[in-house]
C-alpha cells in the first residue's frame, strides 16, 4: 500500500524527532527538574517552530507533503497552539515533574494532527487519528496521582476508543466493498441519486459519523468532554479544545468527503441538525456551571456546534460561505478558547479556587490574565471586534443567504445561542472586575514570562483576528475552496 500514510516529508521528520528528543532529553535530566522542563519545553517548541517554518516558503519546497490547502490552513493552527502550550506548560512541569513524558506526548499529539491533514487514504487518516487520540488519553490523565483526572481519563478512553472502533468499521466496510483505501476512490453515492441509508454505503456513513462524532463531541456523544477538559492540565485542555476536538470533526469530513461522491444533501442536513442540538446542549450545560474550566468545556461543545453548522450548510445547501465560516471558526476558536483556558489555568493557580463566585475582584490583582480572559469571553460570545464574531458572521450569513427555511433556522439558532452564551460569560466578566477586592486569600506562586507570554499573545491574536483578519484570509479562502471542490465542485 504505497503512500498509505501520506507523502510525509520534512515536517513529519521534524515533529517525530522532536518528540523523541524531547522525551529523551527530559528523561535523562530527570534528576535536575529545572533543566528537565526547560529542555523539554525548548525542544518541543523548537520542533513546532521548525515544522511551521517548513510549511511556508521558502522552505516549503523542501518537503512536498500531502498537505492540501485545507491542511496548509489548519496545520499551522495546531503547531502554533503547540508552541503556546509548550511554553505555558513549564509552570506545571516545575511542580509536577515528568516533563519527558509530557512533552513527548504533546509533540506526538500535534504530529497526529498534522498527519491527519497530510494523509491521503482512509487508513492513514485513521492511524494518525489514533496517534493523536492515544497521546491525548495519556495527557488528560497526566496527573495520575489524583483520582479525578484518572476517572475523567477513563471515561474519555472508553468512549473514544468505542468511537474509534466504529469509525474503523466504517473504513473496513468501504475497503471490503471497493478494495481501495485511497480517499476519493470509493465514490459511493447516497440519497436521491444513489442507494439508501441501509446499504453498505449508508452503514459506513453512519458508522463514521457516529465514531468520529464522539471525538468531535457531537451531542449525544459529548459526555466525556466536560470531565476530560476540566481535569486535564490547563495547557492540555487548551490544545485539546483548540485543535484536537476539531480534528475529530475534520477527520469525519475527510473520510466522508473522500468516500462518497455525492454525500452532499443527507450528510449536510444531518450535520446541521446535529449542530443545532450540539450548540444548544453545550450552551445550556454551561449556564449552570460554577467551575470555570467546566464552563469553558461546555462552551467548547457549543462552539463545535458552530463549526458543524457552517460545514453542514456548506455541504447540505452548497454554500461556500458556510464552509468558510466553519473553517475560520476553527482558527478563531483555537485562539480564543486556548486563550481562555490558559488564562483560567493561571487564575485558578493564583487564587487557589476554580469556583467562579470566589474570583470576585481578581481582575484588579491580575489585570493582564483577567483581561485576556475577558477578551476571550467576549470573542466566544460573538461580540464584534473580537475574533469569534468574524467567523460566526459567515456562519450567520450563510444560512440567511441560502434563502431556505432550514438555512435561516440554523442561522437564527446560532444567533440565539450566541445570546444564550452571554448568560454565563457576562457574570464571569462582571465578577472578575468587581470593585470590592474580596478574592480568596491568594496562593502566591511565582510566575515566569513563559506562562504569561503565550496567554498575552493569544489575547492579541483574538483582537487582531477580530479587527483585521486580512492576512489569514487568502489561506482561508483557498482552504474553503478546496473543501468545496471535495464536495463535488459546487
Amino acid at each position: 500500500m504505497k503512500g498509505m500514510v501520506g507523502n510525509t516529508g520534512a515536517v513529519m521528520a521534524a515533529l517525530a524527532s522532536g518528540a523523541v528528543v524531547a522525551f529523551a532529553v527530559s528523561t535523562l535530566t530527570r534528576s535536575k527538574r529545572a533543566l528537565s522542563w526547560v529542555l523539554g519545553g525548548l525542544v518541543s517548541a523548537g520542533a513546532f517552530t521548525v515544522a511551521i517554518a517548513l510549511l511556508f516558503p521558502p522552505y516549503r519546497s523542501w518537503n512536498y507533503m500531502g498537505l492540501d490547502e485545507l491542511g496548509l490552513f489548519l496545520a499551522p493552527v495546531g503547531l502554533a497552539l503547540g508552541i503556546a502550550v509548550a511554553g505555558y506548560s513549564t509552570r506545571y512541569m516545575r511542580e509536577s515533574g515528568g516533563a519527558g513524558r509530557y512533552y513527548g506526548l504533546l509533540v506526538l499529539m500535534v504530529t497526529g494532527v498534522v498527519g491527519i491533514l497530510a494523509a491521503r487514504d482512509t487508513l492513514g487518516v485513521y492511524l494518525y487519528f489514533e496517534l493523536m487520540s492515544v497521546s491525548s488519553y495519556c495527557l488528560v490523565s497526566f496527573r495520575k496521582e489524583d483520582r479525578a483526572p484518572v476517572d475523567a481519563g477513563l471515561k474519555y478512553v472508553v468512549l473514544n476508543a468505542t468511537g474509534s472502533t466504529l469509525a474503523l468499521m466504517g473504513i473496513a466496510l468501504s475497503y471490503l466493498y471497493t478494495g481501495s483505501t485511497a480517499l476519493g476512490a470509493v465514490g459511493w453515492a447516497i440519497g436521491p441519486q444513489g442507494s439508501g441509508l441501509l446499504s453498505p454505503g449508508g452503514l459506513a456513513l453512519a458508522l463514521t459519523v457516529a465514531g468520529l462524532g464522539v471525538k468531535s463531541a457531537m451531542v449525544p456523544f459529548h459526555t466525556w468532554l466536560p470531565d476530560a477538559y476540566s481535569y486535564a492540565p490547563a495547557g492540555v485542555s487548551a490544545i485539546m479544545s483548540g485543535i484536537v476536538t476539531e480534528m475529530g470533526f475534520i477527520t469525519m469530513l475527510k473520510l466522508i468527503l473522500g468516500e462518497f461522491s455525492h454525500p452532499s444533501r443527507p450528510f449536510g442536513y444531518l450535520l446541521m441538525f446535529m449542530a443545532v442540538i450540539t450548540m444548544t446542549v453545550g450552551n445550556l450545560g454551561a449556564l449552570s456551571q460554577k467551575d470555570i474550566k467546566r464552563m469553558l468545556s461546555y462552551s467548547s461543545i457549543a462552539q463545535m456546534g458552530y463549526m458543524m453548522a457552517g460545514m453542514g450548510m456548506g455541504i447540505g445547501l452548497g454554500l461556500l460561505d458556510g464552509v468558510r465560516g466553519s473553517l475560520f471558526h476553527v482558527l478563531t476558536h483555537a485562539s480564543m478558547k486556548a486563550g481562555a483556558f490558559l488564562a483560567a489555568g493561571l487564575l485558578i493557580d493564583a487564587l487557589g479556587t476554580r469556583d467562579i463566585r470566589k474570583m470576585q475582584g481578581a481582575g484588579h490583582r491580575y489585570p493582564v490574565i483577567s483581561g485576556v480572559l475577558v477578551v476571550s469571553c467576549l470573542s466566544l460570545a460573538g461580540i464584534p471586534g473580537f475574533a469569534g464574531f468574524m467567523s460566526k458572521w459567515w456562519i450567520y450569513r450563510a444560512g440567511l443567504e441560502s434563502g431556505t427555511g432550514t438555512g435561516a433556522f440554523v442561522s437564527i439558532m446560532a444567533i440565539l445561542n450566541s445570546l444564550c452564551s452571554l448568560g454565563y460569560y457576562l457574570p464571569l466578566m462582571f465578577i472578575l472586575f468587581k470593585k470590592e477586592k474580596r478574592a480568596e486569600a491568594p496562593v502566591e506562586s511565582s510566575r515566569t514570562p513563559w506562562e504569561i507570554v503565550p496567554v498575552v499573545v493569544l489575547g492579541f491574536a483574538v483582537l487582531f483576528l477580530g479587527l483585521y483578519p486580512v492576512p489569514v484570509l487568502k489561506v482561508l479562502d483557498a482552504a474553503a475552496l478546496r473543501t468545496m471542490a471535495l464536495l463535488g465542485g459546487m
Partner: protein
Amino acid sequence: MSRETLLIGGVLPGFVAALSALFLKRAPKLTRTITLGALGLSAGVLGCLAFSTGASVTKLSYPWIPSWGISFGLKLDALSAFVAATVAFMGFVDLIYCFGYTKPEEVGSSFYGWISLFVASMIGVVMSTDLMQFYFLWELMLIPSTALIVYWGTGKNPEATGFKYFIITHVGALMILISFLWIMNATGTSDMDLIAGRLAALSPGVLTTMAVLLLGGFAVKMAIVPFHIWLPDAHSEAPLPVSVLLSAVMMDMGIYGMLRFLLGVFPSGILQSLSLPVMIFGVISQWYGGLEALGQTQMKRIAAYSTISQMGYVLFGIGSFTRTGVSGSVLHILNHGLAKALLFMTVGSVIHATGAHDLDEVGGLGRKMPLSALFGITAAFGLAGAPPLSSFHSEWRIFAGGFDSGRTTVSVMAVACSVLTAYYALRMIIRMFFGPGTGHENARESPPAMLAAMAVLALSSVLIGFVPRPLSVLVDYAVKTLGLGG
C-alpha cells in the same frame, strides 16, 4: 485644513483619550483633564463642521477587508454632522459636570477612559459608511456603557442591572444584525450609499420584514414600550454622569439608526404602510413613560421614565413620515438632550448636596440652592415644550407632523401627553426645591463646575429657543438628505 482632516480630528480624540487612560492608571486627575480636552476638541471641531455643512457631503473611505467587500470610512452630511456634534457637545458638558460631581481618586482613571470610549464610539456610529462598521461601533458602545453601569453603579445589584442592560440591548443589536446580513446578501454590498438603490428591486414583503427588524432593533435602543424594560434600572442605577450620557445621548443612536436606515434606505411605500403602527407605539411610550414617571418617588427613576416618554415623542414624529414631523424628531435629538441632561444634572446636584435619592426625603432646597432650582425649572419647562425654550420648536414640529399625516386621533393623544409631561416634571422640581424643608441643613449650592455645565445647557436651550434659525436650517438640510426635502 481640509474638511477631511478636520473630520478625523473630530472622531479620533475620544479614542485616543480612552487609550491614554489605559496607561495612566495612577493619574486619574490627568486622565480627567485629557478626556475633557479630547471631548472639547471633538465638540469644537464637529460643531464647526456641522454649521458649515449645508448640503455638502464629506466622505472618507478606506479598505478594511477588501476580499469581503468591507470598508470603513467617515461620512459627514447634514444629518450625521448634526447628531455627531450633539453627541460630542453633550459628552463635553457632561465631563465638565464630572469635575464637580465625581472625585477622580474614587472612580479612577478607567472611569474617564470608559466615558470617552463611550462617547467616541457613538460619534463613530454616526459617521459610519459601511454596515459592518456601523454594527461594530454599535456594539462597541455597549461595552463601555455596561462597564460603567456594572463597576460604578449605585444600585443594590449593579451586576444584575448591567446584565439586563447588556442582554436586552444586545437582542436589539442582533435584530439589526439579521437585517444587515439580509440586506448584504440581497444587495451584494455593505456600502450604505449603495444599498438604497439596490433594495428597491426587492419584493415589498421582504422589504417590510427587513424594515420591521430594523425598527425593532433601534426601538430597543430607544427603549420604546415594550422594549423599554432595560432602561429604568440602567438609567437610574448608573453613576449620575453616566445616566446623563445614557439618557440624553445614547438614545439618539436609536433615533439616528431609524432615520438613516429606515427613512434613508427604504422606499416610501413600505414606510407608509408602517406609519400608523409606529405612531401608535410612539403614543403608547409617551403615555406609559409619563404615567410611570408620575408614580415614582425616586428622582433618578422619574428622569429615567421621562426618557421613555420623550422617545415616544420622537418615534411619533418619525412615524408620521412627513417632512415636518421628521424634522421635529431630528431637532428633538438635541433638545431632548439639553432638557434631559439638565434634569439629570439637577437631580445630581440635589443628590450631591443631600445624599438623598428619594423625593420624600427632600424639599425646600430652593433657598439653599437657588441656581440649581432655576436650572431645574428650565429643565422641566424644556421637557414640557414650553414656548421660550428650544424644545418648543421640536415638539411643535413633531405634533404638526402628526396632523400633517392626517391621523388626527393619534395626534390629539400625542399632544395631550404634553400636559402629563409638564405635570410630572414640575411636580418633581417643586417637591425638590419648594415647600417645607426636610432637614438637610448642611445642603449647599453645587460646586462651580456642576453649575457651569448646567448653565451651558440652560443657556443653549434658551438661546436656541429665541434664535432657532441656524439650527433649523441645519435640520432642514438633514431632512433633505433623507429624501424628505419636499
